[in-house]
């Protein structure tokens, strides 16, 4: 069995008195794809954001590629360099061109030369199929194109793990598939992925592991066959019947 790329052991987190994550155990093997779903407010974003330390957990342990996340800035930096993240709202830098969005991290954080960074950026822009937009500002692109730029920006850091937090939820319906297509290709190329999404077609297609969260807990987990075929918990059955109606 390959070493786990991500390992969460009884992770707990509180916002003041509000217990937002309750004893989360999660293991994602190298190259595996995990899809997390669940109702709004169940803590999906919080789990993903804890994995790259955008949020701090209060107890339990989180290991990425064998390195434990602590307050030590070096461990945070080490883990951030392994973990990319794609946000629901894209969070592209509006004052920079697409190309500059992609080269900023490699040049400033990785010390690449501008030329090397631009070559790498163009490589990944081609992978997300929008090399012709390199000189534009994010504001001039459609939502689907912006999200693909955001994915390319993460890839430029050559991470071992990619986290996605509802990457298609802010998109118009006709743009969802162009983003999902890119994600499926990434999955097929063997990227380790943790994806929060309600796109169940995508989940069936790429997931190795399905996670259902509710009220800060992991209520159900299993392979897509188990998960969609015969969900054990009532909450999960109800949730699935609601979102699969559409």
């Amino acid at each position, binding site marked *: 069995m390959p070493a786990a790329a991500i390992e969460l052991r009884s992770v707990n987190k509180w916002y003041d008195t509000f217990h937002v994550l309750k004893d989360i155990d999660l293991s994602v093997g190298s190259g595996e794809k995990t899809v997390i779903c669940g109702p709004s407010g169940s803590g999906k974003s919080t789990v993903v954001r804890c994995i*790259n330390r*955008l949020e701090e957990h209060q107890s339990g342990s989180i290991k990425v590629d064998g390195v434990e996340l602590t307050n030590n800035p070096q461990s945070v*930096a080490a883990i*951030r*360099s392994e*973990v*990319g*993240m794609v*946000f629901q*709202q894209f*969070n*592209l*830098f*509006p*004052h920079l061109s697409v190309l500059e969005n992609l080269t*900023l*991290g490699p040049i*400033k*954080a*990785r010390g690449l030369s501008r030329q090397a960074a631009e070559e790498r950026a163009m490589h990944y822009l081609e992978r997300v199929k929008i090399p012709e937009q390199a000189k534009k500002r994010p*504001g001039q692109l459609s939502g689907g194109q912006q999200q693909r730029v*955001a994915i390319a*920006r*993460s890839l*430029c*850091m050559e991470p071992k793990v990619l986290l996605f937090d509802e990457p298609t939820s802010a998109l118009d319906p006709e743009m969802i598939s162009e983003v999902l297509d890119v994600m499926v290709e990434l999955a097929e190329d063997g990227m380790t992925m943790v994806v929060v999404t309600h796109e169940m077609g995508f989940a069936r297609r790429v997931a190795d592991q399905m996670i259902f969260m509710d009220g800060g807990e992991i209520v159900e987990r299993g392979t897509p066959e188990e998960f969609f075929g015969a969900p054990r918990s009532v909450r999960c059955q109800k949730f699935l019947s609601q979102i699969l109606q559409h």
Partner: protein
Amino acid sequence: MKKLFVMLVPLLFLTGCSSSSTWGWYVINPMTASGWTNVKFLISGMGDTIVISLIAAVISIALGLVVALPGLAKHRGWRLLNRIYVEFVRSIPLLPMLFWVFYGLPIIFREMGLDIPIDPFWGAVITLALSDSAFTAEIFRAGIQSIARGQTEAAQTIGLNYLQTMRYVILPQAIRRILPPLANQFIYIVKMSAFASVIGMQELTRRANELVVTEYRPLEIYSLLILEYLVLVLVISAGVRWLERRLGSDERN
């Protein structure tokens, strides 16, 4: 209108009491030799006003940024430092601050065994910069806070550290938004630089005061003084417009 009139009349009377009760624009009539000499004398203060204001503004912006950053920290201790500086500095009236810097600082320096003289020029610059920095700090803090949190998070996930995130992601966006209030502060500095006349800087206001003493024509001379500040402010406004266009702060997003 009537109220304004009632307020203005004693003022006119007071300032005009050393002169006659008629206009005497000849003192600044550039067509006459003596008038032209006077006008040249008044305008020659422009250089000092501009240089004092520019240097003070640059220092104030740098200092304001340094003061603003702890105000955005997660830790309460840092934020408290920011609050103390801002509340304290912005409450000090300019004139007492000027005396403190010009007369007080050298004494403190001497007691510390340092020999740092403060001439009127630097006295004025330091006072204006210090006093303004509290306001600049608040402008920076509001501007940085107005940039969505997701920008900082995205910068962190591509490995940028705090300073890089500020330098390459947050400040370039914040600057576009805070340019108009910063320009306001700059105009304020230009006008407040008139206080430098009190410690003997030969800037615009000082020249006007000196001419008033010899010519006994305060109304006419101060009218020209107002005009001089107006010209300065209009030039600044035009410059800021140009900067806004260059930085694209006039476009949405």
